[in-house]
Protein backbone atom coordinates (compact mmCIF):
# COMPACT_ATOMS: atom_id res chain seq x y z
CA UNK A 1 0.00 0.00 0.00
CA UNK A 2 2.61 2.50 1.14
CA UNK A 3 4.94 1.41 -1.61
CA UNK A 4 2.34 1.82 -4.29
CA UNK A 5 1.56 5.28 -3.04
CA UNK A 6 5.24 6.13 -2.82
CA UNK A 7 5.89 5.00 -6.39
CA UNK A 8 3.77 7.85 -7.67
CA UNK A 9 6.14 10.32 -6.07
CA UNK A 10 9.17 9.00 -7.94
CA UNK A 11 8.88 11.00 -11.19
CA UNK A 12 8.83 14.28 -9.23
CA UNK A 13 11.49 13.09 -6.78
CA UNK A 14 13.75 12.15 -9.67
CA UNK A 15 13.23 15.46 -11.42
CA UNK A 16 13.90 17.48 -8.26
CA UNK A 17 16.93 15.45 -7.21
CA UNK A 18 18.27 15.75 -10.74
CA UNK A 19 18.12 19.52 -10.33
CA UNK A 20 20.01 19.30 -7.03
CA UNK A 21 22.64 17.02 -8.47
CA UNK A 22 23.12 19.21 -11.53
CA UNK A 23 23.84 22.10 -9.18
CA UNK A 24 26.78 20.15 -7.86
CA UNK A 25 28.10 18.73 -11.11
CA UNK A 26 31.54 20.29 -10.64
CA UNK A 27 32.11 19.08 -7.08
CA UNK A 28 30.53 15.78 -8.08
CA UNK A 29 33.09 15.45 -10.84
CA UNK A 30 35.89 16.04 -8.34
CA UNK A 31 34.47 13.32 -6.13
CA UNK A 32 34.59 11.05 -9.14
CA UNK A 33 38.36 11.44 -9.43
CA UNK A 34 38.73 9.18 -6.40
CA UNK A 35 36.40 6.60 -7.88
CA UNK A 36 38.40 6.59 -11.11
CA UNK A 37 41.82 6.46 -9.49
CA UNK A 38 41.14 3.50 -7.22
CA UNK A 39 40.67 0.86 -9.95
CA UNK A 40 43.56 2.36 -11.92
CA UNK A 41 45.88 1.81 -8.94
CA UNK A 42 44.82 -1.82 -8.45
CA UNK A 43 44.92 -2.42 -12.20
CA UNK A 44 48.49 -1.15 -12.40
CA UNK A 45 49.57 -3.27 -9.44
CA UNK A 46 47.96 -6.47 -10.74
CA UNK A 47 49.23 -5.92 -14.31
CA UNK A 48 52.76 -5.57 -12.99
CA UNK A 49 52.37 -8.73 -10.92
CA UNK A 50 50.95 -10.62 -13.91
CA UNK A 51 53.84 -9.56 -16.15
CA UNK A 52 56.42 -10.55 -13.56
CA UNK A 53 54.72 -13.96 -13.27
CA UNK A 54 55.17 -14.67 -16.92
CA UNK A 55 52.09 -12.93 -18.25
CA UNK A 56 49.22 -13.93 -15.97
CA UNK A 57 48.07 -14.32 -12.38
CA UNK A 58 45.25 -16.67 -11.47
CA UNK A 59 44.34 -16.83 -15.14
CA UNK A 60 44.16 -13.06 -15.56
CA UNK A 61 46.39 -11.38 -18.14
CA UNK A 62 47.04 -7.62 -17.89
CA UNK A 63 44.40 -7.09 -20.60
CA UNK A 64 41.88 -9.14 -18.64
CA UNK A 65 42.67 -7.21 -15.49
CA UNK A 66 42.09 -4.06 -17.52
CA UNK A 67 38.69 -5.32 -18.67
CA UNK A 68 37.81 -6.31 -15.09
CA UNK A 69 38.74 -2.97 -13.58
CA UNK A 70 37.13 -0.86 -16.34
CA UNK A 71 33.91 -2.76 -15.80
CA UNK A 72 34.29 -2.52 -12.02
CA UNK A 73 34.70 1.23 -12.30
CA UNK A 74 31.36 1.43 -14.07
CA UNK A 75 29.59 -1.02 -11.76
CA UNK A 76 30.94 0.52 -8.59
CA UNK A 77 29.77 3.91 -9.73
CA UNK A 78 26.30 2.53 -10.38
CA UNK A 79 25.99 0.81 -7.00
CA UNK A 80 27.83 2.94 -4.44
CA UNK A 81 25.89 5.15 -1.99
CA UNK A 82 26.81 7.85 0.48
CA UNK A 83 23.90 7.39 2.90
CA UNK A 84 26.11 6.07 5.69
CA UNK A 85 28.10 9.30 5.68
CA UNK A 86 25.03 11.46 5.55
CA UNK A 87 22.85 10.07 8.29
CA UNK A 88 24.71 11.57 11.20
CA UNK A 89 24.56 14.94 9.52
CA UNK A 90 20.82 14.58 8.97
CA UNK A 91 20.18 13.80 12.61
CA UNK A 92 22.42 16.60 13.79
CA UNK A 93 20.84 19.29 11.66
CA UNK A 94 17.24 18.31 12.17
CA UNK A 95 16.60 17.23 8.59
CA UNK A 96 15.45 13.90 9.92
CA UNK A 97 12.81 15.59 12.04
CA UNK A 98 11.20 17.02 8.95
CA UNK A 99 11.57 13.72 7.15
CA UNK A 100 9.71 11.94 9.95
CA UNK A 101 6.81 14.36 9.74
CA UNK A 102 6.20 13.80 6.03
CA UNK A 103 3.61 11.22 5.07
CA UNK A 104 6.15 9.24 3.04
CA UNK A 105 9.09 7.04 4.05
CA UNK A 106 12.38 8.97 3.71
CA UNK A 107 14.04 6.07 1.89
CA UNK A 108 12.20 6.89 -1.34
CA UNK A 109 13.71 10.29 -1.77
CA UNK A 110 17.11 8.75 -1.04
CA UNK A 111 16.66 6.21 -3.81
CA UNK A 112 15.71 8.98 -6.24
CA UNK A 113 18.65 11.09 -5.16
CA UNK A 114 21.10 8.23 -5.67
CA UNK A 115 19.69 7.17 -9.03
CA UNK A 116 19.76 10.70 -10.42
CA UNK A 117 23.28 11.25 -9.10
CA UNK A 118 24.44 8.19 -11.00
CA UNK A 119 22.78 9.37 -14.17
CA UNK A 120 24.43 12.81 -13.93
CA UNK A 121 27.87 11.47 -13.07
CA UNK A 122 27.81 8.91 -15.88
CA UNK A 123 28.82 11.91 -17.97
CA UNK A 124 32.15 11.78 -16.12
CA UNK A 125 32.50 8.04 -15.67
CA UNK A 126 31.85 6.96 -19.27
CA UNK A 127 34.52 9.21 -20.82
CA UNK A 128 36.87 8.06 -18.06
CA UNK A 129 36.22 4.42 -18.95
CA UNK A 130 36.81 5.16 -22.64
CA UNK A 131 40.05 7.08 -22.00
CA UNK A 132 41.36 4.40 -19.65
CA UNK A 133 40.47 1.72 -22.21
CA UNK A 134 42.65 3.49 -24.76
CA UNK A 135 45.47 3.55 -22.22
CA UNK A 136 45.18 0.01 -20.83
CA UNK A 137 43.95 -2.07 -23.79
CA UNK A 138 41.33 -4.17 -22.00
CA UNK A 139 40.28 -7.43 -23.59
CA UNK A 140 36.50 -7.36 -23.67
CA UNK A 141 34.77 -10.56 -24.80
CA UNK A 142 31.30 -9.27 -24.16
CA UNK A 143 28.41 -11.10 -25.77
CA UNK A 144 24.88 -9.68 -26.10
CA UNK A 145 23.59 -12.45 -23.85
CA UNK A 146 26.07 -11.37 -21.15
CA UNK A 147 24.75 -7.83 -21.35
CA UNK A 148 21.20 -9.12 -20.97
CA UNK A 149 22.25 -11.03 -17.87
CA UNK A 150 24.33 -8.11 -16.60
CA UNK A 151 21.53 -5.53 -16.41
CA UNK A 152 19.39 -7.33 -13.80
CA UNK A 153 22.56 -8.17 -11.84
CA UNK A 154 23.48 -4.49 -11.83
CA UNK A 155 20.01 -3.27 -10.83
CA UNK A 156 19.77 -5.79 -8.00
CA UNK A 157 23.35 -4.99 -7.01
CA UNK A 158 22.42 -1.35 -6.55
CA UNK A 159 19.29 -2.14 -4.59
CA UNK A 160 21.14 -4.63 -2.43
CA UNK A 161 23.99 -2.27 -1.57
CA UNK A 162 21.62 0.63 -1.04
CA UNK A 163 19.43 -1.32 1.37
CA UNK A 164 22.37 -2.79 3.30
CA UNK A 165 24.04 0.59 3.70
CA UNK A 166 20.78 2.33 4.58
CA UNK A 167 20.29 -0.25 7.34
CA UNK A 168 23.81 0.26 8.67
CA UNK A 169 23.32 4.02 8.49
CA UNK A 170 20.56 3.65 11.07
CA UNK A 171 23.33 2.97 13.60
CA UNK A 172 23.62 6.74 13.77
CA UNK A 173 20.53 6.66 15.96
CA UNK A 174 22.34 4.73 18.66
CA UNK A 175 25.81 6.14 18.57
CA UNK A 176 27.26 9.48 17.63
CA UNK A 177 30.46 7.77 16.52
CA UNK A 178 29.22 6.22 13.30
CA UNK A 179 32.47 6.88 11.49
CA UNK A 180 34.06 3.91 13.29
CA UNK A 181 31.28 1.63 12.05
CA UNK A 182 31.50 3.13 8.58
CA UNK A 183 35.25 2.58 8.44
CA UNK A 184 34.98 -1.08 9.45
CA UNK A 185 32.24 -1.65 6.92
CA UNK A 186 34.19 -0.04 4.09
CA UNK A 187 37.32 -2.08 4.88
CA UNK A 188 35.43 -5.37 4.73
CA UNK A 189 33.49 -4.21 1.69
CA UNK A 190 36.71 -3.26 -0.07
CA UNK A 191 38.15 -6.75 0.24
CA UNK A 192 35.07 -8.92 -0.18
CA UNK A 193 33.45 -6.99 -3.01
CA UNK A 194 36.23 -7.67 -5.48
CA UNK A 195 37.67 -4.19 -5.50
CA UNK A 196 41.12 -5.05 -4.15
CA UNK A 197 41.33 -8.11 -6.40
CA UNK A 198 38.94 -10.28 -8.41
CA UNK A 199 37.38 -12.74 -5.95
CA UNK A 200 38.90 -15.64 -7.91
CA UNK A 201 42.36 -14.47 -6.83
CA UNK A 202 41.62 -14.40 -3.11
CA UNK A 203 42.49 -17.30 -0.75
CA UNK A 204 39.87 -20.02 -1.02
CA UNK A 205 38.29 -19.48 2.39
CA UNK A 206 37.94 -15.74 1.73
CA UNK A 207 36.41 -16.39 -1.67
CA UNK A 208 34.00 -18.88 -0.12
CA UNK A 209 32.94 -16.38 2.51
CA UNK A 210 32.54 -13.70 -0.16
CA UNK A 211 30.26 -16.08 -2.04
CA UNK A 212 27.72 -15.93 0.76
CA UNK A 213 28.07 -12.34 1.94
CA UNK A 214 26.35 -9.43 0.22
CA UNK A 215 29.43 -7.37 -0.76
CA UNK A 216 30.50 -9.29 -3.87
CA UNK A 217 26.97 -9.26 -5.25
CA UNK A 218 26.91 -5.46 -5.45
CA UNK A 219 30.28 -5.06 -7.25
CA UNK A 220 32.28 -8.07 -8.44
CA UNK A 221 29.31 -10.21 -9.41
CA UNK A 222 27.81 -7.87 -12.05
CA UNK A 223 31.34 -7.43 -13.45
CA UNK A 224 31.86 -11.17 -13.69
CA UNK A 225 28.46 -11.55 -15.35
CA UNK A 226 29.23 -8.88 -17.96
CA UNK A 227 32.65 -10.32 -18.77
CA UNK A 228 31.23 -13.83 -19.19
CA UNK A 229 33.31 -15.28 -16.32
CA UNK A 230 30.39 -17.23 -14.94
CA UNK A 231 28.33 -20.19 -16.16
CA UNK A 232 24.58 -19.80 -16.59
CA UNK A 233 24.06 -21.74 -13.34
CA UNK A 234 26.45 -19.49 -11.45
CA UNK A 235 24.64 -16.42 -12.75
CA UNK A 236 21.25 -17.75 -11.67
CA UNK A 237 22.63 -18.71 -8.28
CA UNK A 238 24.03 -15.18 -7.99
CA UNK A 239 20.62 -13.67 -8.78
CA UNK A 240 19.16 -15.87 -6.07
CA UNK A 241 21.69 -14.70 -3.50
CA UNK A 242 21.09 -11.10 -4.51
CA UNK A 243 17.35 -11.57 -4.00
CA UNK A 244 17.87 -13.21 -0.63
CA UNK A 245 20.03 -10.33 0.61
CA UNK A 246 17.62 -7.73 -0.79
CA UNK A 247 14.81 -9.42 1.10
CA UNK A 248 16.83 -9.72 4.29
CA UNK A 249 17.91 -6.08 4.16
CA UNK A 250 14.37 -4.96 3.32
CA UNK A 251 12.93 -6.86 6.29
CA UNK A 252 15.67 -5.63 8.60
CA UNK A 253 15.06 -2.03 7.50
CA UNK A 254 11.37 -2.17 8.16
CA UNK A 255 11.97 -3.66 11.60
CA UNK A 256 14.93 -1.53 12.60
CA UNK A 257 13.44 1.66 11.18
CA UNK A 258 10.49 1.51 13.55
CA UNK A 259 12.85 0.93 16.47
CA UNK A 260 15.27 3.63 15.46
CA UNK A 261 12.52 6.16 14.83
CA UNK A 262 11.22 5.29 18.27
CA UNK A 263 14.71 5.69 19.68
CA UNK A 264 15.07 9.03 17.92
CA UNK A 265 11.76 10.27 19.23
CA UNK A 266 12.65 9.15 22.73
CA UNK A 267 15.86 11.14 22.76
CA UNK A 268 14.82 14.02 20.60
CA UNK A 269 16.93 16.30 18.52
Amino acid at each position, binding site marked *: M*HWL*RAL*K*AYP*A*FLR*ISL*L*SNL*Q*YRASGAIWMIGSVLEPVVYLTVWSTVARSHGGSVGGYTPEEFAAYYMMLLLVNHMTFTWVMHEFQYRIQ*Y*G*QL*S*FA*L*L*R*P*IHPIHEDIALNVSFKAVQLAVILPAVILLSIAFHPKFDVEPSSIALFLPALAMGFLLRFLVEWTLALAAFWTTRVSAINQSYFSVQMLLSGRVAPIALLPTWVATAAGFLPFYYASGFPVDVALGHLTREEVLRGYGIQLVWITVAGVVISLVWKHS*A*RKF*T*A*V*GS
Partner: protein
Amino acid sequence: MNTVIQIDQLSKSYVVPVRGAGVRASIASLVRRKTRTVEAVKEISLSVDAGEIVGFLGPNGAGKTTTLKMLSGLLHPTSGTASVLGFEPWKRNNGFLEQITLVMGQRNQLIWDIPVIDSFDRNRVIYRLTRDEYRQRLDELVELLELSELLSKPVRNLSLGERMKCEVAAALLHHPRILFLDEPTLGLDVSMQRRLRSFIEQYNKRTGATVLLTSHYMADVVALCPRVVVIHHGVLLFDGKLADLVRKFSAQKTLVLELEEGQEDLSRFGQVVSQEGSRATIRVPKQDTAEVTARILRELKVQDLNVADPPIDEIIDQVFSGGMA
Protein backbone atom coordinates in the same frame (compact mmCIF):
# COMPACT_ATOMS: atom_id res chain seq x y z
CA MET B 1 -16.72 23.89 20.05
CA ASN B 2 -15.00 20.71 19.06
CA THR B 3 -11.77 19.85 20.76
CA VAL B 4 -8.90 19.06 18.41
CA ILE B 5 -6.11 18.70 20.94
CA GLN B 6 -6.47 16.97 24.28
CA ILE B 7 -3.46 16.52 26.52
CA ASP B 8 -3.54 14.68 29.82
CA GLN B 9 -0.71 14.61 32.34
CA LEU B 10 1.82 14.71 29.55
CA SER B 11 5.41 14.37 30.78
CA LYS B 12 8.75 14.06 29.12
CA SER B 13 12.04 13.42 30.81
CA TYR B 14 15.45 12.94 29.26
CA VAL B 15 18.34 10.96 30.66
CA VAL B 16 21.52 12.92 30.17
CA PRO B 17 25.05 11.83 31.01
CA VAL B 18 26.75 13.72 33.80
CA ARG B 19 30.48 14.08 33.80
CA GLY B 20 32.82 16.30 35.75
CA ALA B 21 35.56 18.30 34.09
CA GLY B 22 39.05 16.92 33.59
CA VAL B 23 40.77 13.70 32.64
CA ARG B 24 39.99 11.82 35.84
CA ALA B 25 36.31 12.41 35.46
CA SER B 26 36.51 11.33 31.81
CA ILE B 27 38.21 8.07 32.74
CA ALA B 28 35.78 7.48 35.59
CA SER B 29 32.89 7.96 33.21
CA LEU B 30 34.29 5.22 30.97
CA VAL B 31 33.83 2.75 33.79
CA ARG B 32 30.64 4.02 35.27
CA ARG B 33 28.48 6.45 33.42
CA LYS B 34 26.58 8.70 35.70
CA THR B 35 23.32 9.97 34.38
CA ARG B 36 20.73 12.38 35.55
CA THR B 37 17.12 12.69 34.59
CA VAL B 38 15.93 16.02 33.32
CA GLU B 39 12.23 16.59 33.43
CA ALA B 40 11.53 18.79 30.45
CA VAL B 41 7.75 18.69 30.73
CA LYS B 42 5.86 17.76 33.89
CA GLU B 43 2.28 16.56 33.79
CA ILE B 44 0.84 19.15 31.49
CA SER B 45 -2.87 18.95 30.77
CA LEU B 46 -4.83 21.17 28.47
CA SER B 47 -7.28 21.09 25.61
CA VAL B 48 -7.52 23.22 22.50
CA ASP B 49 -10.60 23.81 20.37
CA ALA B 50 -10.65 23.99 16.61
CA GLY B 51 -9.71 27.41 15.29
CA GLU B 52 -7.94 28.63 18.43
CA ILE B 53 -4.59 30.40 18.36
CA VAL B 54 -2.65 29.51 21.48
CA GLY B 55 0.65 31.11 22.41
CA PHE B 56 3.19 29.20 24.46
CA LEU B 57 5.29 31.46 26.62
CA GLY B 58 8.34 30.58 28.63
CA PRO B 59 12.07 31.21 28.79
CA ASN B 60 14.59 29.04 26.95
CA GLY B 61 14.44 25.48 28.17
CA ALA B 62 11.00 25.88 29.71
CA GLY B 63 9.58 22.93 27.79
CA LYS B 64 7.65 24.76 25.08
CA THR B 65 9.42 23.16 22.16
CA THR B 66 9.37 19.75 23.81
CA THR B 67 5.60 20.07 24.16
CA LEU B 68 5.18 21.10 20.51
CA LYS B 69 7.40 18.24 19.41
CA MET B 70 5.32 15.74 21.34
CA LEU B 71 2.12 17.09 19.86
CA SER B 72 3.49 17.03 16.33
CA GLY B 73 4.73 13.46 16.75
CA LEU B 74 8.47 14.04 16.87
CA LEU B 75 8.85 13.06 20.48
CA HIS B 76 7.57 10.15 22.46
CA PRO B 77 6.37 11.25 25.90
CA THR B 78 7.59 9.53 29.04
CA SER B 79 4.08 9.36 30.41
CA GLY B 80 0.65 10.82 29.89
CA THR B 81 -1.59 10.88 26.85
CA ALA B 82 -2.27 13.20 23.99
CA SER B 83 -4.80 13.12 21.21
CA VAL B 84 -4.48 15.42 18.23
CA LEU B 85 -7.34 15.26 15.71
CA GLY B 86 -8.15 11.91 17.25
CA PHE B 87 -4.66 10.51 16.56
CA GLU B 88 -1.88 9.61 18.93
CA PRO B 89 0.73 11.97 17.45
CA TRP B 90 3.89 9.91 17.99
CA LYS B 91 2.48 7.03 15.96
CA ARG B 92 2.81 9.37 12.99
CA ASN B 93 0.00 7.87 10.92
CA ASN B 94 -0.04 9.28 7.41
CA GLY B 95 -3.62 10.38 8.05
CA PHE B 96 -2.33 12.49 10.93
CA LEU B 97 0.77 13.83 9.21
CA GLU B 98 -1.28 15.05 6.26
CA GLN B 99 -3.29 17.30 8.53
CA ILE B 100 -0.55 18.97 10.53
CA THR B 101 2.52 21.04 9.90
CA LEU B 102 5.55 22.02 11.95
CA VAL B 103 7.57 25.14 11.26
CA MET B 104 10.79 25.59 13.19
CA GLY B 105 12.26 29.05 12.97
CA GLN B 106 15.86 27.95 13.17
CA ARG B 107 15.68 24.98 10.84
CA ASN B 108 14.71 24.74 7.25
CA GLN B 109 13.14 22.06 5.18
CA LEU B 110 13.40 23.69 1.78
CA ILE B 111 16.02 22.19 -0.51
CA TRP B 112 19.03 24.47 -0.32
CA ASP B 113 20.33 24.49 -3.87
CA ILE B 114 17.30 24.54 -6.09
CA PRO B 115 14.61 27.16 -6.75
CA VAL B 116 11.92 27.55 -4.13
CA ILE B 117 9.20 26.47 -6.54
CA ASP B 118 10.79 23.03 -6.85
CA SER B 119 10.67 22.51 -3.10
CA PHE B 120 7.01 23.43 -3.28
CA ASP B 121 6.51 20.91 -6.05
CA ARG B 122 8.11 18.26 -3.84
CA ASN B 123 5.46 18.94 -1.20
CA ARG B 124 2.74 18.71 -3.84
CA VAL B 125 3.85 15.14 -4.50
CA ILE B 126 4.45 14.19 -0.87
CA TYR B 127 1.01 15.42 0.18
CA ARG B 128 -0.66 14.08 -2.96
CA LEU B 129 -2.27 17.33 -4.03
CA THR B 130 -3.98 17.47 -7.41
CA ARG B 131 -2.49 19.93 -9.88
CA ASP B 132 -5.52 22.17 -9.52
CA GLU B 133 -5.43 22.20 -5.73
CA TYR B 134 -1.73 22.90 -5.83
CA ARG B 135 -2.05 25.71 -8.37
CA GLN B 136 -4.82 27.40 -6.46
CA ARG B 137 -3.13 27.19 -3.05
CA LEU B 138 0.17 28.26 -4.46
CA ASP B 139 -1.40 31.33 -6.07
CA GLU B 140 -3.07 32.19 -2.80
CA LEU B 141 0.11 31.87 -0.76
CA VAL B 142 2.17 33.72 -3.33
CA GLU B 143 -0.25 36.61 -3.14
CA LEU B 144 -0.63 36.70 0.63
CA LEU B 145 3.07 36.38 1.35
CA GLU B 146 4.29 38.29 -1.72
CA LEU B 147 6.44 35.47 -3.00
CA SER B 148 6.27 35.91 -6.75
CA GLU B 149 9.78 37.35 -6.99
CA LEU B 150 11.24 34.56 -4.88
CA LEU B 151 9.89 31.44 -6.53
CA SER B 152 12.60 31.06 -9.11
CA LYS B 153 15.50 31.82 -6.77
CA PRO B 154 17.55 29.06 -5.15
CA VAL B 155 16.90 28.93 -1.41
CA ARG B 156 20.53 29.67 -0.58
CA ASN B 157 20.18 33.08 -2.25
CA LEU B 158 17.27 34.18 -0.07
CA SER B 159 17.52 36.45 2.95
CA LEU B 160 16.41 35.05 6.30
CA GLY B 161 13.06 36.83 6.07
CA GLU B 162 12.44 35.69 2.52
CA ARG B 163 13.35 32.16 3.45
CA MET B 164 10.97 32.12 6.42
CA LYS B 165 8.12 33.28 4.20
CA CYS B 166 8.88 30.44 1.82
CA GLU B 167 9.22 27.95 4.68
CA VAL B 168 5.80 28.96 5.93
CA ALA B 169 4.28 28.73 2.46
CA ALA B 170 5.78 25.27 1.94
CA ALA B 171 4.41 24.18 5.29
CA LEU B 172 0.90 25.30 4.41
CA LEU B 173 0.50 24.01 0.85
CA HIS B 174 -1.32 20.93 2.07
CA HIS B 175 -3.74 23.08 4.08
CA PRO B 176 -2.98 21.58 7.47
CA ARG B 177 -5.69 21.81 10.09
CA ILE B 178 -3.16 22.23 12.86
CA LEU B 179 -0.10 24.45 12.72
CA PHE B 180 2.75 23.99 15.16
CA LEU B 181 4.93 27.06 14.90
CA ASP B 182 8.12 26.98 16.92
CA GLU B 183 9.65 30.45 17.02
CA PRO B 184 8.51 31.29 13.49
CA THR B 185 9.68 34.89 13.72
CA LEU B 186 13.11 34.14 15.18
CA GLY B 187 15.72 36.50 13.82
CA LEU B 188 13.33 38.45 11.60
CA ASP B 189 13.20 42.21 11.60
CA VAL B 190 10.22 43.99 13.08
CA SER B 191 8.36 44.62 9.84
CA MET B 192 8.85 41.06 8.64
CA GLN B 193 7.66 39.79 12.03
CA ARG B 194 4.56 41.90 11.66
CA ARG B 195 3.82 40.64 8.18
CA LEU B 196 4.26 37.03 9.13
CA ARG B 197 2.04 37.57 12.14
CA SER B 198 -0.75 39.13 10.14
CA PHE B 199 -0.45 36.31 7.63
CA ILE B 200 -0.85 33.68 10.34
CA GLU B 201 -3.89 35.55 11.58
CA GLN B 202 -5.41 35.68 8.11
CA TYR B 203 -4.70 32.02 7.51
CA ASN B 204 -6.41 31.15 10.77
CA LYS B 205 -9.47 33.23 9.88
CA ARG B 206 -9.70 31.91 6.35
CA THR B 207 -9.24 28.22 7.00
CA GLY B 208 -10.27 27.87 10.63
CA ALA B 209 -6.97 26.11 11.31
CA THR B 210 -5.78 25.72 14.87
CA VAL B 211 -2.44 27.36 15.66
CA LEU B 212 -0.03 26.54 18.47
CA LEU B 213 2.83 28.98 18.58
CA THR B 214 5.90 29.51 20.69
CA SER B 215 7.76 32.77 20.60
CA HIS B 216 10.24 34.84 22.51
CA TYR B 217 8.70 37.96 21.14
CA MET B 218 5.84 39.16 23.32
CA ALA B 219 4.60 41.19 20.38
CA ASP B 220 3.84 37.96 18.51
CA VAL B 221 1.82 36.65 21.37
CA VAL B 222 0.03 39.91 22.14
CA ALA B 223 -0.95 40.36 18.51
CA LEU B 224 -1.93 36.81 17.71
CA CYS B 225 -2.95 34.84 20.73
CA PRO B 226 -6.13 35.48 22.66
CA ARG B 227 -5.07 32.56 24.79
CA VAL B 228 -1.67 32.02 26.32
CA VAL B 229 -0.10 29.06 28.05
CA VAL B 230 2.82 29.84 30.32
CA ILE B 231 5.32 27.04 30.90
CA HIS B 232 8.24 27.34 33.25
CA HIS B 233 10.62 24.56 34.31
CA GLY B 234 8.31 22.17 32.48
CA VAL B 235 5.32 23.11 34.61
CA LEU B 236 2.20 24.75 33.30
CA LEU B 237 1.88 27.98 35.29
CA PHE B 238 -1.00 29.61 33.54
CA ASP B 239 -3.55 28.86 30.84
CA GLY B 240 -6.04 31.54 29.92
CA LYS B 241 -6.57 34.96 28.43
CA LEU B 242 -3.65 37.30 28.08
CA ALA B 243 -5.50 39.97 30.07
CA ASP B 244 -6.04 37.54 32.91
CA LEU B 245 -2.37 36.67 32.88
CA VAL B 246 -1.56 40.32 33.40
CA ARG B 247 -4.12 40.58 36.16
CA LYS B 248 -2.88 37.49 37.88
CA PHE B 249 0.82 38.08 37.74
CA SER B 250 1.30 41.80 37.90
CA ALA B 251 1.87 42.70 41.51
CA GLN B 252 2.17 46.36 40.74
CA LYS B 253 0.40 49.14 38.91
CA THR B 254 1.98 52.01 37.10
CA LEU B 255 0.74 55.55 37.74
CA VAL B 256 1.51 58.15 35.11
CA LEU B 257 1.09 61.69 36.47
CA GLU B 258 0.98 65.05 34.77
CA LEU B 259 1.61 67.65 37.50
CA GLU B 260 0.75 71.33 37.41
CA GLU B 261 3.79 72.40 39.36
CA GLY B 262 7.13 71.11 38.13
CA GLN B 263 9.41 69.09 40.41
CA GLU B 264 8.13 67.46 43.53
CA ASP B 265 9.55 64.62 45.56
CA LEU B 266 7.24 61.71 44.78
CA SER B 267 9.12 58.95 46.55
CA ARG B 268 6.71 59.05 49.47
CA PHE B 269 4.02 57.65 47.15
CA GLY B 270 5.91 54.78 45.59
CA GLN B 271 8.88 53.74 43.46
CA VAL B 272 9.70 56.55 41.03
CA VAL B 273 10.44 55.07 37.62
CA SER B 274 10.94 58.35 35.80
CA GLN B 275 10.38 62.04 36.33
CA GLU B 276 10.91 64.57 33.60
CA GLY B 277 9.53 68.08 33.87
CA SER B 278 5.94 67.82 34.95
CA ARG B 279 5.58 64.22 33.86
CA ALA B 280 6.29 61.35 36.25
CA THR B 281 5.85 57.61 36.38
CA ILE B 282 5.66 55.77 39.68
CA ARG B 283 4.99 52.20 40.54
CA VAL B 284 2.91 51.08 43.51
CA PRO B 285 1.80 47.71 44.89
CA LYS B 286 -1.46 46.65 43.30
CA GLN B 287 -3.42 46.51 46.54
CA ASP B 288 -2.36 50.06 47.46
CA THR B 289 -3.36 51.60 44.13
CA ALA B 290 -6.65 53.12 45.29
CA GLU B 291 -5.22 54.53 48.48
CA VAL B 292 -2.12 56.01 46.82
CA THR B 293 -4.19 57.52 44.01
CA ALA B 294 -6.44 59.21 46.53
CA ARG B 295 -3.45 60.59 48.47
CA ILE B 296 -1.83 61.94 45.30
CA LEU B 297 -5.01 63.68 44.27
CA ARG B 298 -5.36 65.15 47.76
CA GLU B 299 -1.79 66.31 48.22
CA LEU B 300 -0.72 67.35 44.72
CA LYS B 301 -2.11 69.46 41.94
CA VAL B 302 -2.58 66.92 39.23
CA GLN B 303 -3.57 67.70 35.64
CA ASP B 304 -3.79 64.12 34.56
CA LEU B 305 -3.44 60.71 36.19
CA ASN B 306 -3.37 57.37 34.48
CA VAL B 307 -3.34 53.92 36.06
CA ALA B 308 -1.91 51.15 33.92
CA ASP B 309 -0.44 47.69 34.07
CA PRO B 310 3.31 47.44 33.60
CA PRO B 311 4.42 46.32 30.11
CA ILE B 312 3.68 42.67 29.48
CA ASP B 313 7.36 41.84 28.96
CA GLU B 314 8.08 43.03 32.46
CA ILE B 315 5.32 40.94 33.93
CA ILE B 316 6.52 37.85 32.16
CA ASP B 317 10.04 38.56 33.25
CA GLN B 318 8.81 38.82 36.83
CA VAL B 319 6.97 35.55 36.56
CA PHE B 320 10.00 33.74 35.21
CA SER B 321 12.57 35.22 37.52
CA GLY B 322 10.50 34.74 40.63
CA GLY B 323 8.94 31.39 39.80
CA MET B 324 5.27 31.23 40.59
CA ALA B 325 3.94 34.59 41.69
